[in-house]
C-alpha cells in the first residue's frame, strides 16, 4: 500500500467554514419558541442564603419563570465527581443551583427564564437574595489549618490525601534512604498560580425537550460523558438524552466538565416544556467556569556530589476550590506519575492533600497535573546544576534514561515504551546556538549590561493517550479509557468514518480522513468524518489528555482493517478465488499472481445490493471497533528559551525559543505545528502573564480580559520548532500525541531562563507569572539583601 496521506501537511478541512463564519456554534442555534436564560450569581464567596424574593423578577416583562435552588431541589441531584481518589474522599453536595448556601463568588442562586435574552438579563437585577456572609478561606496554607471552613458541614477542608511511595509500591527504594545524609539536598517551594482556561467560545447550551429524546447542544469537549452524567445526575434515562457538540471553539480542559449551567438549562427546558438557551458572558466565564492549576509544591531532591539524583520527595497542597468537578480531585494524581520525568531516580515519594477553598472549583486545564510536575522537576534540575556549579544540560544528561534503556520502568511505576532524549536535545542545541548564547550571556554579565540574558532549559516527557481502562480502574476513575469508531463504505465507494473522539478545534476531520484514505486507498476527499453527536457517534469517550489520535485514531484504523477483512470475503467471491489469495493495495483487491482486481467501491456496491454475496454474509461494508490502549504514550522533547531581562524595568522578553518535540509518527505536520504553537502560548502565558487573582473577600479581581492577561500574537516570539521521530511501540501507527506538549514543556523553560538571567544578581526565585513588577521587586530585594550570592 502506498502511503500518500499520513505525513502530509494538508490544510484542514474544517477551516474554510470556520474562518468564513459559516460555523455553527451552540449560540448560533435558534429553535422555534425558544426561551432564554440568565443566571443570578452570588456576589459573595461564602454565605448562607436566608431568603430569595423573585416576585419582582417574575412579573418583569417577558419573564416566563424564575427557578431557585428550592424550586429544583428534588430534581437537580448533585453534579458528578468521577474520580474519588481515595475511598474516604470528602466532597460537599454540588447542586446546580445553590439551595442553602454559596461557597464561591459566581455560584448560581437563581435562573431567569424569559422570552428574550435581554428580558432575562433585565430581570437578574430584580431578584432579591438575602445573604448572611460567612468567613472565607482562600489560601491553601490557611485551608490546611481547618480554622475557617469552606464548607462548615464537612467539618474539614481536607478532601483527601493520596500517597505514592516507591518503597511501598516496590518500584524503588524508600525515600528516607535517599534523603537521610544526602550529599546534596535541594529544598524548594513552588507555587502554581490559579489559571483560567479562557477558551475563545464561551460556554453555551441549548436544550430541546419537545422530541422523544431531550436534545442537548452544548459547547463541550465530552458529549458522550455529558450524556451519561446528565442522565445520572438528573434521573433521566440515558436513552432519552441526546447530546450534540456542534462546532466548539476551544476547550483546553475547560469544557471537560458537566456544568451547573448545562444541568440548569435541562431543568429549565423540562420545567417550561420549551427549548431553552443559555450562553454565558465572558465575565461569567472567567468567574464561574472551572479554573486550573492552583497548587503549592514542597519538594526535596537529593543527589550525589557528582550530580546523580538519588531521590525526590513531593508534598503537594492542591486547591480544589469550592467543589469537586468531574475530575478535579484526580488532576494532581495525573501529575504524580510525572515528577520523575525523563530521569532515573531510585527513590520517590509523592503526597498530595486536596483542599477546599471558597473559590471557583479547579479541574483539568491543558496538561492537567503534568505541567505542574514538569515545572517542579525542571526547576529542581536547574537548582541542582547551580548548587553544583555545572551546566544544567549536563546534569540532565547524567540522569536521564538512555535511548538504549527503553522500554524503561520508572520509579513511579510506568513503563515508558520509547524515547530518545539524546537526539531531541542534540537537535535543539544545534538550532539554538547554545554556545554562542552562553558566550553572549557572559559578555553581558561582564559589562553589566542593563539587559541580561538567560538560557532556560526544559527536557520533558508526559504521559498521554488517556488511557488503558485497567489503569484508570486501578486509580479509581469511574470510566474507562477506550475509544470507538465506525467505518462505513457507502454504495458509491465514499467512506463515512464515525469517531467517538470529539474535536473542538483539533482537526480530527482532516487527520482521520488522512488515516483512512491511506488505509483504504481512497482519495482524501472521499472520506467524511462524523462526530460530536451521540445519535451519530453512539459510543465514545471524547477528547482530552492528548488521546484522540493514539486512542481514537487507532480505533479508526482498527475499524478500517475490519472493513478490509470483510471486503476480502466479497472480493474472493466476486473473482472466484480463495480468500487467502486476495491481496489489498491502493484501494483494490486483486488475486495473487493474476491481473484480476476489483475496486473497493465495486465491492461496497455488491455488499450493498446483496444480489450476489457469499452464503451467510451480512450485507454492507461496515465495521465497528473499540480500541483500549495497552499503555500510555510518552511524547518528549527539549525546549530552550533565550530570555532577556531588562533590569531597569523588570520586563522579560523572549529572544529566541527553540523546541524539538518527539511526538512519534506524525499524521499531519501542519496540525502538529499548530498544536505546538498554541501549547507554547499557553505555557508561556503561565510563566509570564496569566493569574487569577482574588481579593480578601474572595471576589475575582481579574474578572475581565483587561486584568486577566491572555497573551496574543504580538506578545510571542517566532518559534523555531522541529521534531525528532521516535515511534511509540504501543500503537500500530507509532503516534504519541501532541495536544499538551507545548504547554507542559514551556513554562519551566521560560522561568528557568528568567532566573538564569538574574541569578548572578542575587535573585533566587520569582513567582509566576514573572511580571515586570515582580522581576523588578526581586532585583530590588536582592540588592537590599546583599546582592551576589
Amino acid at each position: 500500500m502506498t502511503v500518500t496521506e499520513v505525513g502530509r501537511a494538508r490544510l484542514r478541512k474544517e477551516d474554510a467554514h470556520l474562518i468564513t463564519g459559516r460555523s455553527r456554534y451552540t449560540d448560533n442555534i435558534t429553535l422555534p419558541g425558544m426561551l432564554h436564560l440568565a443566571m443570578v450569581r452570588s456576589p459573595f464567596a461564602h454565605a448562607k442564603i436566608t431568603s430569595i424574593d423573585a416576585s419582582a423578577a417574575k412579573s418583569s416583562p417577558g419573564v416566563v419563570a424564575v427557578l431557585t435552588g428550592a424550586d429544583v431541589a428534588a430534581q437537580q441531584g448533585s453534579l458528578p465527581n468521577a474520580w474519588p481518589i481515595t475511598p474516604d474522599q470528602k466532597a460537599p453536595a454540588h447542586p446546580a443551583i445553590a439551595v442553602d448556601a454559596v461557597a464561591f463568588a459566581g455560584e448560581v442562586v437563581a435562573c431567569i427564564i424569559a422570552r428574550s435574552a435581554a428580558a432575562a438579563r433585565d430581570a437578574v437585577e430584580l431578584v432579591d437574595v438575602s445573604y448572611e456572609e460567612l468567613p472565607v478561606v482562600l489560601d491553601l496554607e490557611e485551608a490546611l489549618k481547618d480554622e475557617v471552613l469552606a464548607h462548615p458541614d464537612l467539618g474539614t477542608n481536607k478532601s483527601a490525601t493520596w500517597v505514592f511511595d516507591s518503597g511501598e509500591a516496590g518500584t524503588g527504594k524508600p525515600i528516607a534512604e535517599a534523603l537521610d545524609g544526602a550529599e546534596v539536598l535541594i529544598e524548594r517551594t513552588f507555587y502554581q498560580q490559579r489559571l483560567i482556561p479562557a477558551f475563545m467560545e464561551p460556554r453555551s447550551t441549548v436544550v430541546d425537550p419537545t422530541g422523544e429524546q431531550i436534545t442537548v447542544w452544548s459547547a463541550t469537549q465530552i458529549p458522550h460523558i455529558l450524556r451519561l452524567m446528565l442522565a445520572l445526575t438528573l434521573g433521566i434515562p440515558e436513552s432519552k438524552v441526546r447530546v450534540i457538540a456542534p462546532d466548539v471553539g476551544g476547550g483546553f480542559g475547560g469544557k471537560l466538565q458537566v456544568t451547573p449551567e448545562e444541568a440548569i438549562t435541562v431543568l429549565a427546558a423540562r420545567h417550561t416544556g420549551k427549548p431553552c438557551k443559555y450562553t454565558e458572558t465572558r465575565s461569567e466565564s472567567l468567574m464561574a467556569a472551572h479554573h486550573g492549576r492552583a497548587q503549592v509544591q514542597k519538594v526535596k531532591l537529593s543527589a550525589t556530589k557528582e550530580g546523580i539524583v538519588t531521590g525526590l520527595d513531593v508534598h503537594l497542597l492542591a486547591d480544589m476550590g469550592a467543589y469537586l468537578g468531574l475530575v478535579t480531585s484526580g488532576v494532581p494524581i495525573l501529575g504524580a506519575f510525572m515528577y520523575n520525568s525523563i530521569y532515573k531516580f531510585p527513590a520517590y515519594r509523592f503526597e498530595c492533600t486536596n483542599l477546599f477553598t471558597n473559590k471557583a472549583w479547579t479541574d483539568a486545564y491543558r496538561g492537567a497535573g503534568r505541567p505542574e510536575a514538569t515545572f517542579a522537576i525542571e526547576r529542581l534540575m536547574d537548582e541542582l546544576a547551580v548548587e553544583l556549579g555545572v551546566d544544567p544540560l549536563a546534569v540532565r544528561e547524567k540522569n536521564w534514561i538512555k535511548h538504549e534503556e527503553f522500554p524503561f520502568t520508572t520509579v513511579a511505576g510506568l513503563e515508558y515504551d520509547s524515547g530518545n532524549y539524546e537526539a531531541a536535545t542534540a537537535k535543539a542545541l544545534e538550532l539554538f546556538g547554545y554556545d554562542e548564547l552562553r558566550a553572549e550571556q557572559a559578555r553581558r554579565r561582564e559589562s553589566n549590561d542593563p539587559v541580561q540574558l538567560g538560557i532556560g532549559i526544559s527536557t520533558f516527557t508526559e504521559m498521554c493517550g488517556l488511557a488503558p481502562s485497567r489503569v484508570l480502574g486501578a486509580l479509581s476513575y469511574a470510566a474507562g479509557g477506550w475509544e470507538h469508531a465506525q467505518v462505513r463504505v457507502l454504495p458509491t465507494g465514499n467512506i463515512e468514518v464515525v469517531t467517538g473522539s470529539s474535536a473542538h478545534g483539533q482537526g480530527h476531520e482532516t487527520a482521520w480522513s488522512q488515516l483512512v484514505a491511506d488505509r483504504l486507498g481512497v482519495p482524501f476527499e472521499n472520506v467524511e468524518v462524523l462526530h460530536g453527536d451521540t445519535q451519530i457517534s453512539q459510543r465514545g469517550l471524547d477528547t482530552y489528555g492528548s488521546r484522540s489520535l493514539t486512542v481514537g485514531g487507532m480505533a479508526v484504523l482498527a475499524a478500517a482493517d475490519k472493513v478490509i477483512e470483510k471486503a476480502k470475503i466479497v472480493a474472493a467471491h466476486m473473482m472466484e478465488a480463495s480468500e487467502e489469495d486476495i491481496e489489498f493495495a491502493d484501494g483494490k483487491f486483486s488475486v495473487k499472481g493474476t491481473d484480476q482486481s476489483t475496486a473497493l467501491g465495486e465491492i461496497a456496491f455488491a455488499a450493498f445490493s446483496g444480489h450476489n454475496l457469499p452464503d451467510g454474509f451480512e450485507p454492507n461494508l461496515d465495521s465497528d471497533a473499540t480500541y483500549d490502549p495497552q499503555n500510555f504514550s510518552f511524547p518528549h522533547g527539549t525546549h530552550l528559551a533565550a530570555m532577556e531581562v531588562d533590569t531597569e524595568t523588570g520586563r522579560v522578553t523572549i529572544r529566541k525559543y527553540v523546541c524539538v518535540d518527539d511526538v512519534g509518527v506524525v499524521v499531519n505536520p501542519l496540525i502538529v505545528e499548530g498544536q505546538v504553537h498554541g501549547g507554547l502560548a499557553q505555557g508561556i502565558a503561565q510563566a509570564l502573564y496569566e493569574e487569577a487573582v482574588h481579593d480578601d473577600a474572595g471576589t475575582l479581581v481579574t474578572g475581565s480580559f483587561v486584568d486577566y492577561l491572555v497573551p496574543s500574537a504580538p506578545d510571542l516570539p517566532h518559534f523555531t520548532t522541529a521534531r525528532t521521530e521516535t515511534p511509540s511501540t504501543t500503537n500500530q501507527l507509532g503516534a504519541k500525541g501532541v495536544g499538551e506538549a507545548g504547554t507542559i514543556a514551556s513554562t519551566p523553560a521560560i522561568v528557568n531562563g528568567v532566573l538564569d538571567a538574574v541569578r548572578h544578581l542575587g535573585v533566587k526565585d520569582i513567582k509566576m507569572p514573572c511580571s515586570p513588577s515582580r522581576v523588578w521587586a526581586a532585583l530590588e530585594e536582592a540588592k537590599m539583601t546583599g546582592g551576589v550570592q
Partner: protein
Amino acid sequence: MIPSAFDYSAPATVAEALGALADAGDDVKLLAGGQSLIPVMKLRLADPAMVVDLGRIGELSGVRDDGDALLIGAMTTHHQIANDPLIAEHVPLLAKAAATVADPQVRHRGTFGGALVHADPAGDMPAPVLAADATFILAGPNGERRVAAADFFRGYFTTAVDDGEILTHIRVPKYTGWGAHYEKFTRVAQQWSIVAVAAMVRVEGGTIAEARIGLTNMASTPVRAAAVEQALVGAPLTREAIATASAHAAEGTDPASDLNGDAAYRRHLAEVLTKRAVIAAAGL
C-alpha cells in the same frame, strides 16, 4: 453582555445635539466611538435612559490648520490622529501616542475627544494633550467656552465638561521642529498604560532648549513632570544629563497600586521611561 434599554438619537449638528441633551435631562450620555461607553453599558456599570450619538455630526471630525495651532475635531478617530499629515508635521507626539492605543479596530472607532472626556488615568491621549498645553473648546447651552488643558482634567474619570456640554474641538499649539516620543509600558501588546511618558524637546546646538513632559497613570489625572522639564532646560544633549534630570520624574505624582505594580514600582518606572522618552525624543 446586554445593556439596559435606552433611547437613542443621532443629531446632525452640534446645535441639535445640545438640544437633545437639554431635552433628555439628567440621565443622558453622549456617544462618540463607543469604545469606553458601550463596554460599561454592557457591564451595566452605566445605564443611561438616553444616548445621543455624535457620529453623524460632520463638523466634529478632522484636523485643520489654525495659524499657530491645529484645530482637531473631537470626533477625529485615533486612526486619523495617528496618520494625519498636519499632526505628523506639527504635533507628532499626538500621532505617536494615538498609534499605541489598543488595536486597529479600536483606533478606527475610538475618538480623540471621547478619550479625553473619558479621562481614564491610564488612557494615552490626556498626557500628550496636557504636555502640549492644548485648549478645549466646549459648546453648551450658554454658548462656547474654552478650558486650558491644565484645568481640564479634574480627577479620576472627571473633567471640566459639565452636564449639557459637548467637547467640540481641541486646539493644539504647533511644536514644529520639536522632537517627540511617547514611551508606553505595558505587559502585553494591547493594554492600557501601566505608566507612559509623553515627551517633546526642542534641541538647539547641542543643548536642550525646551522640554514638555506629560505622565500617564501617575495620578488620578495626567500630570506634567515639571521638575524634569526644568532640569532639562539648558542641559547638554547627553544620556547622562537626561538620566540625571529624569530622576525627578516621580516628584509630585501620586500613582495607584494595582495588579500591574505598586506605587513604588510606578514611580521607578516613571524615571526610567522618562529617560527613555526624552532620549528618543531628542534623537539620541
